[in-house]
């Protein structure tokens, strides 16, 4: 393999790696001004984003395309470690978008922080890991790429290294992350033992022809448990709220909007293969049919149950929260349940819906956490009730936040409505008990309207406290140094609000690209 054939496809990744090394070099040289470093990070992520979009074939960006077209959606030969599917590239674009938004908003961080180079370096490294997840076709490659992101995010959560909140959140995150890592690698080792390969295509094909029922089932069970921690599915969700709550808000935006999604793409890669292969050859011929177990339906049913439990429990707990960040964290958990529907059903429309939902969630939840960061910087407390009257005092900020919440609830003319519509209608199309997934999703959306509406009421219709805002709880220390919202955050929040409406009114370009990619993904996979 000569160098040029390796560099071409990996230009976005190499761009990020270059930026990481540059930022670390600045750290050594003692150049630590936040604004300059933020500019580097924004430049690297946006260039990488342009390159990925160019590779996807968006005509105006053809200049930036670097991937040899022959490699895109090529049928896999042998047992490759990575391959470039258009769905993978769309996920890369989504991941880069979330990183770009966070880098842009971070321009408003206090400019004299000593750790700024480390902050951006780790952020970019985490993004690099996410990009690599999106091209993986090998179980070990996939899990190691997830670990690149995980290790970086443990340290990002600990970024405020003089605050016990931040460090405790990091410690919890680390313990749960380590558990999840061990479980997934153990699952991978069992699959490796059963099939003598770690290639996802080979494993998918083998599950439909070679039978080691208990060992394989156990392997997939461990993988589901391990990945479920990353995606915050319900029996494995308890850590998420504490971590999102304790982490710096910009990092929470990245965790909820960005890194969580790699687990979902991993679900696509790991579980769609066997489900599709077994569907393709027909249940009658599956080696599991003769035994007590039929792997495809067992996997599907497990994922369906997890999806329903996750959305319901997430929503119910969100109803009870008094703090804004915790409410958003629980709502984020319930959204993961909606996304899992796509993996469960495994048809092209369902994958389209789930991908669209992930894209929408990056905007909505990332935006909402950035608003929380901005509001904290304004000196307003963490409780929902502290936000009283925000709509009158800061009409634009209040309106943007309202837009994000409406989109999360799935109100028409927002991107959240489009994604939910595609997702639930695909569940209805798929017939069978999948229709119940759509019903559960709709009921849950209705339920979620309650707590979003409550927040809207507090922001717009409750009178602001007459005394100048007195936070009811001691504000998180990140509120202290920063004064005001900051240009970076204001621009980012505005941009997100515009995108939410724009893609809600005119989703065609994104939706079309995702539909084509999902179709490809299914045919390449099967």
């Amino acid at each position, binding site marked *: 393999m000569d160098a040029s054939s390796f560099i071409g496809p990996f230009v976005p990744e190499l761009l990020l790696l270059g930026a990481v090394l540059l930022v670390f070099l600045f750290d050594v040289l003692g150049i630590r001004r936040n604004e300059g470093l933020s500019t580097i990070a924004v430049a690297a992520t946006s260039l990488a984003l342009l390159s990925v979009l160019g590779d996807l074939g968006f005509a105006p960006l053809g200049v930036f395309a670097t991937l040899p077209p022959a490699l895109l959606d090529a049928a896999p030969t042998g047992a490759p470690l990575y391959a470039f599917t258009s769905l993978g590239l769309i996920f890369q674009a989504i991941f880069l978008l979330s990183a770009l938004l966070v880098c842009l908003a971070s321009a408003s961080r206090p400019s004299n922080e000593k*750790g700024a180079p480390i902050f951006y370096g780790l952020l970019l490294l985490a993004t690099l890991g996410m990009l690599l997840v999106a091209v993986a076709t090998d179980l070990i490659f996939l899990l*190691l790429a997830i670990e690149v992101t995980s290790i970086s995010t443990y340290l990002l959560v600990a970024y405020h*290294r003089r605050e016990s909140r931040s460090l405790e959140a990091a410690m919890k995150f680390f313990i749960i992350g380590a558990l999840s890592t061990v479980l997934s690698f153990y699952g991978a080792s069992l699959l490796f033992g059963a099939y003598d390969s770690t290639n996802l295509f080979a494993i998918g094909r083998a599950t439909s022809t070679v039978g*080691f029922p*208990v*060992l394989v089932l156990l392997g997939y069970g461990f993988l589901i448990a391990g990945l479920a921690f990353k995606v915050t599915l319900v029996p494995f969700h308890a850590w998420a709220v504490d971590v999102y709550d304790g982490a710096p808000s910009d990092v929470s935006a990245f965790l909820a909007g960005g890194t969580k999604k790699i687990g979902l793409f991993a679900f696509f890669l790991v579980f769609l293969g066997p489900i599709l292969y077994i569907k393709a050859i027909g249940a009658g011929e599956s080696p599991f049919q003769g035994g007590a177990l039929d792997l495809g339906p067992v996997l599907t049913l497990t994922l369906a149950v997890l999806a329903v439990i996750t959305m319901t429990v997430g929503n119910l707990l969100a109803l009870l929260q008094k703090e804004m960040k915790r409410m958003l964290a629980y709502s984020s958990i319930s959204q993961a349940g909606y996304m899992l529907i796509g993996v469960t059903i495994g048809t092209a429309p369902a994958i389209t819906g789930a991908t669209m939902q992930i894209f929408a969630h990056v905007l909505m939840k990332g935006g909402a956490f950035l608003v929380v960061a901005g509001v904290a910087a304004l000196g307003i407390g963490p409780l929902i009730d502290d936000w009283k009257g925000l709509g009158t005092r800061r009409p634009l900020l209040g309106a943007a936040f309202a837009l994000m919440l409406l989109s999360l609830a799935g109100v028409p003319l927002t991107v959240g409505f489009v994604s939910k519509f595609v997702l639930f209608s695909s569940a209805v199309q798929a017939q069978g008990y999948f229709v119940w997934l759509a019903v559960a999703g709709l009921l849950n959306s209705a339920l979620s309207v309650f707590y979003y509406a409550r927040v809207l009421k507090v922001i717009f219709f409750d009178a602001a406290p007459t005394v100048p805002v007195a936070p009811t709880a001691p504000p998180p220390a990140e509120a202290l140094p920063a004064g005001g919202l900051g240009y970076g955050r204001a621009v980012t929040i505005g941009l997100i609000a515009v995108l939410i409406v724009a893609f809600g009114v005119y989703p065609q370009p994104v939706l079309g690209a995702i539909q084509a990619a999902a179709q490809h993904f299914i045919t390449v996979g099967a």
Partner: protein
Amino acid sequence: MSLEELAFLALAVVALATAVAALLVRELVHTILWVSVFFVDLSAIYFLLEAPFLGVLQLGVYAGAVTILLLFGIMVTRKRIFSRDAATGLGPIPLALAAVTFIFLIASVGEFPNSPTPLQTYAPALLSAQLFGPNGPWLLLLGLIMLSGVAGAIYLVREGRE
């Protein structure tokens, strides 16, 4: 029963016993002792499996570096060495989880045709071809993991005024 089987049996018993001991003994320093025995024991199992390279790596990284790291951690945080409250709170859920895992694994044992294949003999050239050939990206990813780990860890423990 062949000599290898006997050796394996002995090593397996030692591994399980030291793992339990490491987590249950009352003093952290003793924990380190047990866990280093555990690491060395596993390294012996790798030698038994004709994987001497891994055996040596296990000795160097685990029995050497990781043990020292853990000792170092205990030394620096020594305030709490001898006071481990709630040392044996046997929560029922993790115990059940662990037990179910174990039972399932034993259930899967019968699936294998009874050890038909002979042991692969040690082939360093093949191993390095695996490490640096088509599977090379694994090592690159490990490099990325280490880069982020080292950069972040240094930042966290670095002294300096904010």
